[in-house]
């Protein structure tokens, strides 16, 4: 069965410094992986997705993630944090191989951005 583990429940960075949110996955198949962001009192927004094409995936708002099969990782990065990046981030894997559209969520990482 697929699963994802977000290695940090809370990450704090200063504005203008790099962001790294770590995610490891477990899957017997070639997975589809996603990062979603949830701002306070707002809905979930898709940041980016990996679906076996390029291993470096670029998303919205300057975020990107790299799929590393050898490390079973899909870490989310951003070169320079902005105050508006403060939110909850979820690493997500799609259920396979039935391709049901179902998603399995990690526990989430809270990103705090300090001025």
């Amino acid at each position: 069965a697929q699963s994802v583990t977000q290695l940090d429940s809370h990450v704090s960075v200063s504005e203008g410094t790099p962001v790294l949110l770590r995610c490891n996955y477990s899957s017997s198949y070639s997975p589809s992986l996603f990062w979603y962001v949830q701002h306070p009192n707002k809905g979930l927004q898709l940041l980016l997705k990996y679906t076996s094409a390029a291993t470096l995936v670029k998303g919205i708002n300057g975020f990107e993630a790299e799929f590393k099969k050898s490390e079973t990782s899909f870490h989310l990065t951003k070169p320079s944090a902005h105050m508006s990046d403060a939110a909850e981030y979820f690493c997500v894997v799609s259920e396979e191989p039935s391709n049901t559209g179902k998603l399995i969520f990690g526990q989430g990482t809270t990103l705090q951005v300090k001025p």
Partner: protein
Amino acid sequence: SAVISQKPSRDICQRGTSLTIQCQVDSQVTMMFWYRQQPGQSLTLIATANQGSEATYESGFVIDKFPISRPNLTFSTLTVSNMSPEDSSIYLCSVARLAGVSYEQYFGPGTRLTVT
């Protein structure tokens, strides 16, 4: 993408009562889901809402507690029955659309339920 609306956006309910949450999508979709997000937690899938047939529930969720309707391809309801304080959560509906070789899932804004 998809534009999804939910009603109500929030509610405070007394234990023992039931609340029905509505989810409306701006276009027809095959796959629609209901999730629960308990305070400070991640999202857990409750069920897949199937158009024209009974919903498919995940382990730990039953139809008597969370009856779901899906009368057409743009609308679904989730009822939280005989509520207790443990049901206090955000309930989200989502839809999945095929994008390339995989599905992309879009979420509604959620319904924040507090049970007293």
